[in-house]
């Protein structure tokens, strides 16, 4: 393994590009302006860094943050039992679960539908800002934050899948019915957008800020 001194060599510093799909290293030849080099092994377009990473991630995060409002304000589900129905938002649904004594389930839904999306939005925004301002604060921890955000994001889909099952099962006419609400669509969009945001962020940018002779890593 190479050394971890302050002169550790990155692929970019060595003029090499790693294929994002098959991880093979290439030394790109000069290509005519506007054209892109392709990986000779798997055909994927070669990028030194994820293209427009900061711009894309910021745009996706902003859209997700905006949609998070209707996701929580509008009802995600309406339960009609014995003719009495009340629409539930994410928060009120959690409240009901707590009130019904299902503390474990309530905590799980609260965690997956509220804590995780908020933390994901906050942490990815923090990472984007830290890269923009070229901070050198704890790169290893920041990379850890990124990995956490990427890993945990899909679990927010929990609520959406639960709703789809409830809608499918509880179709007993006047006796009991469950319907999905607009809030669920908005929430699903938030989850998708944050997933895309995490995958468009390039964690290598965190480490690029540490390079003494800063490279221009625009693609």
């Amino acid at each position, binding site marked *: *393994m190479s050394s971890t001194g302050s002169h550790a060599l990155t*692929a970019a510093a060595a003029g090499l590009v790693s294929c994002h799909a098959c991880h093979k290293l290439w030394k790109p030849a000069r290509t005519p302006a506007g054209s892109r080099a392709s990986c000779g092994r798997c055909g994927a377009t070669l990028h030194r860094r994820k293209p427009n990473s900061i711009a894309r991630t910021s745009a996706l995060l902003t859209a997700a943050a905006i949609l998070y409002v209707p996701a929580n304000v509008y009802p995600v589900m309406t339960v009609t039992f014995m003719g009495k129905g009340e629409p539930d938002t994410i928060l009120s649904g959690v409240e009901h679960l707590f009130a019904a004594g299902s503390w474990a389930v309530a905590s799980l839904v609260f965690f997956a539908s509220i804590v995780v999306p908020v933390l994901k939005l906050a942490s990815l925004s923090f990472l984007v800002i830290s890269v923009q301002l070229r901070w050198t604060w704890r790169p290893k921890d920041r*990379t850890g934050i990124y990995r956490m955000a990427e890993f945990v994001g899909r679990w927010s889909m929990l609520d959406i899948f639960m709703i789809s099952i409830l809608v*499918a099962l509880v179709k007993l006419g006047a006796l*009991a019915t469950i319907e999905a609400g607009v809030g669920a669509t908005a929430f699903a969009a938030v989850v998708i957008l944050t997933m895309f945001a995490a995958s468009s962020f390039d964690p290598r940018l965190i480490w690029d800020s540490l390079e003494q002779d800063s490279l221009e890593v625009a693609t």
Partner: protein
Amino acid sequence: MAVSTNDIANELTACHDCDLLHRVEELPRGGVAKCSRCGAVLYRHRVNSLDRTLTLIISSFVFYLLANVYPFMSFRLEGRVQTCTIFTGVVDLWSAGMWFLASLVFFASMLAPLLKILGLLYLLVPLRLDRLPWDLELSHRIVHALHPWGMLDVYMLGVLVAIIKLSGLATIDLGIAFHSLVALMVLTTAATVTLDPQDIWERLEVRR
């Protein structure tokens, strides 16, 4: 540096999280190579990746078919019964006008796992028979791109939460499709662990 591209490629690898260059080394059985700077996993030692993954994927396919054919769950309240398949939720959401939600649930719980299984079959069966699948590169990249979208484990947890929510009110019966889906989830996760992408790329290069 007057090093040919092939020398570079076969000796070095770059960390995908921090771009640090590392020399590729032989790993002991079960070994994992991690980036010396940021701790990211660079590559792993996998035994018999092709056969093991293929076995898991073929069994996954069988369970996928079972999960689609048989009933998933039923809900009994005051003498009335409502049965559903894994498809029912999607259809109901769609007919209620929630197209985005329906498509998303369909994609994440049914289509992505299927595409992943079929994609891996398409890749691995020819390789096992010492042939090259047509357009291997594209199919391998598609299989990898699909990986975060196979959300069966989240789906099963969602089902579990739904069951808990309803169990106070009514009786829930679990069908064959439910158990098949659990098996499918376990097998596809195992296949992800046994699959060695580097092995597949190397076989491609050897064949050429």
